[in-house]
């Protein structure tokens, strides 16, 4: 009987690991593993040794998934928790409501073209000379004044916001935390989602560190570059807005990427991927960039 229980658990854990490694997180996986842990606890005869049993229960619970289990209110709560820390670390909100509203207007327009058009996205501009942008779960997107100063048109802003919106819409932030072995060893995701205060604080700490120091790897950046161009195009903008950043980045020794804190995926590869996506969009040469409106609404107002 014990052998059978272990065999079942091994199968479940192997399946879980395979799914995590392949990136195809299954929504039912966490539920299944949670149920397996409950069964072991409720039927001590399956694993008679108390210490062994505790290890199996802990093991099954540790690999519960975040992406599959987190619901939208929980995701928004996580975003709020991360956003309060982000403001402290990166800068105060820029004190001009007109600029804030303009950025939010472009952001909302682009977000409507994402995979999650109904999510209540929130946008903010923070005071920092460093070009930076940050996307947090639940729809919180922050951009720095330093980044806004580098842009020359509304279409560039639309593509950058689109890139950030993609990280939210496709839940990249949650996925990279979930896939991180170190974080998985430190946080019981299930307990955090069940409102265990200690585990929740640890989860947010780990998430914050992960998102603001390492950022996204090549795979997520490629997806976000492509989606950013696609969302912006569908919203009616000229979709090449990310290209100047990637080209400058590729031609420079000093990284110019707008997500300043992140690991630095190969810009030349990103350019190739973005070109591939742009080709699919057809002839967009005459689509609006809106340089004059951007100049009037943002550049003229930034001090």
């Amino acid at each position, binding site marked *: 009987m014990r052998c059978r229980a272990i065999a079942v658990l091994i199968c479940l854990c192997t399946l879980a690991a395979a799914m995590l490694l392949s990136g195809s997180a299954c929504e039912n996986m966490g539920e299944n593993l949670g149920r397996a842990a409950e069964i072991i606890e409720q039927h001590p005869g399956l694993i008679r040794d108390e210490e062994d049993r505790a290890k199996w229960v802990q093991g099954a619970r540790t690999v519960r998934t975040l992406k599959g289990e987190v619901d939208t209110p929980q995701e928004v709560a996580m975003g709020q928790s991360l956003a309060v820390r982000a403001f402290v670390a990166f800068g105060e909100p820029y004190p001009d409501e007109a600029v804030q509203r303009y950025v*939010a207007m472009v952001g909302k327009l682009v977000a409507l073209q994402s995979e999650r058009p109904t999510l209540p996205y929130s946008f903010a501009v923070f005071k920092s000379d460093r070009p930076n942008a940050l996307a947090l779960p639940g729809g919180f997107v922050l951009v720095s004044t330093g980044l806004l100063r580098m842009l020359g048109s509304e279409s560039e802003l639309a593509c950058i916001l689109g890139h950030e919106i993609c990280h939210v819409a496709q839940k990249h932030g949650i996925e990279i935390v979930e896939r991180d072995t170190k974080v998985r060893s430190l946080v019981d995701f299930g307990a955090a*989602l069940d*409102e265990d205060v200690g585990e929740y604080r640890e989860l947010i700490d780990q998430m914050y560190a992960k998102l603001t120091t390492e950022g996204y790897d090549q795979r997520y950046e490629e997806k976000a570059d492509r989606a950013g161009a696609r969302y912006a195009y569908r919203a009616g903008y000229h979709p090449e807005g990310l290209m100047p950043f990637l080209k400058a980045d590729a031609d420079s020794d000093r990284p110019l990427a707008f997500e300043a804190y992140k690991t630095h995926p190969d810009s030349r590869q990103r350019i190739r991927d973005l070109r591939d996506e742009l080709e699919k969009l057809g002839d967009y040469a005459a689509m609006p960039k809106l340089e004059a409106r951007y100049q009037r609404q943002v550049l003229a107002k930034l001090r």
Partner: protein
Amino acid sequence: MRHYRWAALIATGLALAALPVLARTMYARLSTPVRSGQGLAAQTVGTLKQGQAVEVLGREGSYYRVSHAGQTGWVYFNKLAEDKPEDMSVLLTGGGLGGGIKLTELQTGGALRGLSPMAEDYAAARNVPQWAVQAVEEMQARTIDAEQLEEFQQEGGLGEYGEEVAR
């Protein structure tokens, strides 16, 4: 004779495979008008609510031809999504970690109010200053409704208002 049978089978298969392309279900990304023809000047014959399913009969240029409430009409391509958008009504009441958060309305102009108790606890535990909490509350409470978005697009010649998008 056998060849004819195979040909008939293949033709039937192809016809069946093509059916979803000819008529398929799409969903409104936001509340959107169904018009009697292509272009903003055409008469509005109905309105799709956010998330509402509609049968798409085909596409011409930037418009989908749809069947809505027993009549045929046209919807601009960027107003429809392949997948049904998430139902956010749970945010109207909140619950679990999201308790304490309230969405003011489900439509485009909906804004979030309040912080979840878990987020408040986290901010207090990590000594986050009040101004940062307020910054989050302000960003999520910034309301931009559908009418304002429409005016913004019109002013910029974006989407349906831009001639160049139509292709």
